[in-house]
């Protein structure tokens, strides 16, 4: 089941050599350790570039987006397994 969330969240990520590696996210006061980025794709909203990631903690898939201009991470959806 996929649930739309659309909430700003806290993310721990490493930016290295043009790559973004997401380590953890905090949502609803709970910290989820990220095991893998399963997919990533870029989109645009107006003149803003958005980096989208599908990430997993092994139990759920989170779709998060990052807008570099605003330095905002957003939790878009959760795929509950």
């Amino acid at each position, binding site marked *: 089941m*996929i649930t739309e969330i659309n909430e700003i969240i806290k993310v721990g990520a490493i930016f290295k050599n043009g790559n973004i590696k997401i380590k953890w996210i905090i949502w609803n006061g709970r910290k989820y350790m990220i095991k893998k980025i399963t997919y990533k*794709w870029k989109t645009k909203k107006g*003149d803003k570039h958005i980096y989208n990631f*599908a990430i997993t903690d092994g139990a759920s898939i989170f779709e998060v987006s990052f807008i570099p201009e605003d330095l905002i991470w957003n939790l878009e959806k959760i795929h509950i397994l």
Partner: protein
Amino acid sequence: MEKVFFHIDMDAYFASIEQITNPFLKGKPVAVSGGLSTKSVVASCSYEAKKYGIKSGMSISEALFLCPDLIVVPGNPEKYIETSKEIFEIIKNFKEEIEVYSIDEVFVDVSDIYYVHGGAENLAVKIKKNIKKIIGLTCSIGIGPNRLIAKICSSISKPDGIKIVKTEEVEKFMENLPIEEIPGIGERIYKKLSDIGIEKCGDIKKVGKNFLINLFGKTGEKIYNYACGIEEPLINTELPEFSIGHSYTFQYDTDDKEFILKTIFNLCEKVAERMRKKGKHGNFITLFLRFDDFSFIQKRKKFNDIPADGKLIFECALNIFSSININKKIRAIGISVGDLFDFDYQYIFKEKIKREKLFYHIDKINEKFGERTVFPAILMDVSEAKKTHSFYFWKFKNGLT
């Protein structure tokens, strides 16, 4: 120089992307649809779902009947479009000029580069490896002396395969090819041919061109040429565009007149935008309505010189809509402008010049910052209707049906 064409076709494209995005979907029957409603249709399905007889275009309820364990995932067009762009860039690293046939299909004329890579098959392996490594998806590559043969080969080699047919092998290859493998042979033509015992391309050759022309008119000649492995124009840029249309299937059947009219307006805006891109005006408008009981009505009306202006197209569409007595809920709506012609003269009235300038700038902004960055305020609450589908493209892909 011997001509060598590649047809690169991604395997179960949308479904494969969803299976990578969510690894828990791997190995499971998955269908990607426009929405989660059972009224939506299957846009793409995984090979596991295909085993149950599920096909693109089938309604979700029908697909669930065939496979109750089917996992239906709502599609994410932006993700698929962006992934396509990345795939095309990977292919362009090998050959700059590519012919994009659809969101997940590309033709490449590799005649001048394949030998540099140690032969056509080696080049195909390299392209497949790069796509797999960078994107994580598999594709099938058909290789032939023309686009038609390449396309048939990629279809036969699915999934994750490579198939080559050389010039000298074409005749033998086509001889035993089942007619349904020919791109564009739809159900109607297939049934007509199989009813008279024509099952293979070799049978088509035997009955001859004139027999097929008598049966199908001009299309008969095309079928004959295809069956002989002769390429007719396959690329969309070479096809004349007779109409431009968009359609939309509601998530839920509706009789909310305001919402229906806004959706029609949205479709008209999209049609107008495409007409402007092609520099076309039209003479006919067709309104298509499908109702909750699957019955439908299609009304066509002539309006001389319909400009590429969403508001004016909407006024014409509204004229047709008002003439229809509707007493059922509506499931889907389609609008098309037909009898297109090139518009290459200048307006002389101030108001029209003003609107033309406005459209020019809106189109420029949307081109630069993304589709629908600027759109009429009245459409603010019909965001769902933004996800419309082009039935022009559907018609093109099913050219002979």
